[in-house]
């Protein structure tokens, strides 16, 4: 009895289509990507129905974490951070920053140390800086360094938009101090960063 011949099929498949798809995705992600900033701060923002998107640049951000510590950050469009640090050392002649410290300041994310600790903080190795327990920028009425930061930040980049990125559990007393500081500096319009939440009015419409 003759054996039934099963035609042998090649195991290789045409990969071209797969390559097409993978490179399409690759291109898409490469063009839309925006790298996560290297911030060790974890802030769980409250949610709201507001849908205003935040621009990427010209942002002066004040972060308040759950413990009520205040942090300051500004984006580095057109070397804003370099100018800001120059302004600070101009105002505080005792703080003379080295080139390395300036570089560290430009590359670091949020700053949350009092001015007198700033030089030491920037002088640390990058790994140590991440581990450093930042005590927050003082906002007390007796010694309000946040006001200085805001002033110098606005001088460094006049078109800056000010945002408050507060944690859900941040005490109101601290947020109030931050808002009072902003009002003192004649900043009466600012944005609160929130997560998106469904608008019940729109849900009803569906």
């Amino acid at each position, binding site marked *: 009895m003759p054996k039934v011949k099963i035609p042998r099929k090649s195991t290789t498949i045409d990969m071209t289509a797969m390559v097409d798809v993978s490179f399409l995705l690759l291109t898409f992600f490469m063009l839309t990507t925006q790298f996560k900033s290297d911030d060790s701060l974890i802030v769980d923002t409250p949610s709201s129905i507001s849908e205003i998107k935040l621009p990427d640049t010209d942002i002066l951000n004040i972060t308040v974490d759950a413990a009520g510590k205040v942090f300051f950050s500004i984006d580095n469009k057109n070397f804003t951070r370099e100018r800001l640090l120059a302004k600070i050392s101009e105002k505080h002649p005792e703080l003379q920053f080295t080139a390395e410290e300036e570089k560290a300041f430009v590359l670091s994310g949020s700053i949350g140390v009092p001015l007198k600790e700033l030089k030491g903080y920037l002088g640390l190795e990058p790994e140590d800086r991440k581990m450093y327990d930042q005590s927050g920028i003082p906002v007390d009425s007796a010694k309000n360094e946040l006001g200085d930061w805001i002033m110098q930040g606005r001088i460094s980049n006049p078109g800056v938009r000010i945002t408050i990125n507060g944690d859900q559990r941040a005490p109101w007393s601290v947020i109030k101090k931050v808002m009072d500081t902003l*009002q003192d500096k004649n900043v009466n319009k600012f944005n609160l960063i929130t997560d998106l939440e469904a608008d019940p009015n729109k849900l009803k419409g569906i």
Partner: protein
Amino acid sequence: MAELAQQDSGHKKGKKKGRKKMSTKIDLTPMVDLGFLLVTFFMLTTTFSKPQTMEINLPVKEPIEKPEDEPGVKASKSLTIIMGEDNKLFWYMGVTTDPLEGPIGTDYTSEGIRKVLLEKNATIDGLIVLIKPADKSVYKNVVDILDEMNISNIQRYALVEITPEDMDLIKNL
């Protein structure tokens, strides 16, 4: 075009020397591997959703010279919301010393404060909401209430500093 085709065939003839025809197929697997590796990398490092923001405008801080200059609020049209510690919430109508209605404790759900706000906003023309967060309240409470203003479409509201009288009022609730 015809010329081109002819040239082509001529070329073939010249190749008759028995040279081996190389396959044009190459193994694309490493390329796919690399492609997907990069896709994964970009997918994991990307941040897609830009943060949402809520815009608020505070009044210009100006020293009020005479107490009479302070803008008055009609008692019958003012609703005060007090945020206490541990997510407690109270509201009353009218002035602190002599509330027309309340103070009544409520919560942040859609059945709580939102119902009150919608009802008052529908019945009272020109309702003014005064938001008074106590020092022990948290940031989320304030954002939630500001959000409720947007949801209930209340046009006039203000963040006001809490007074000791307010604290006394809610102490026993």
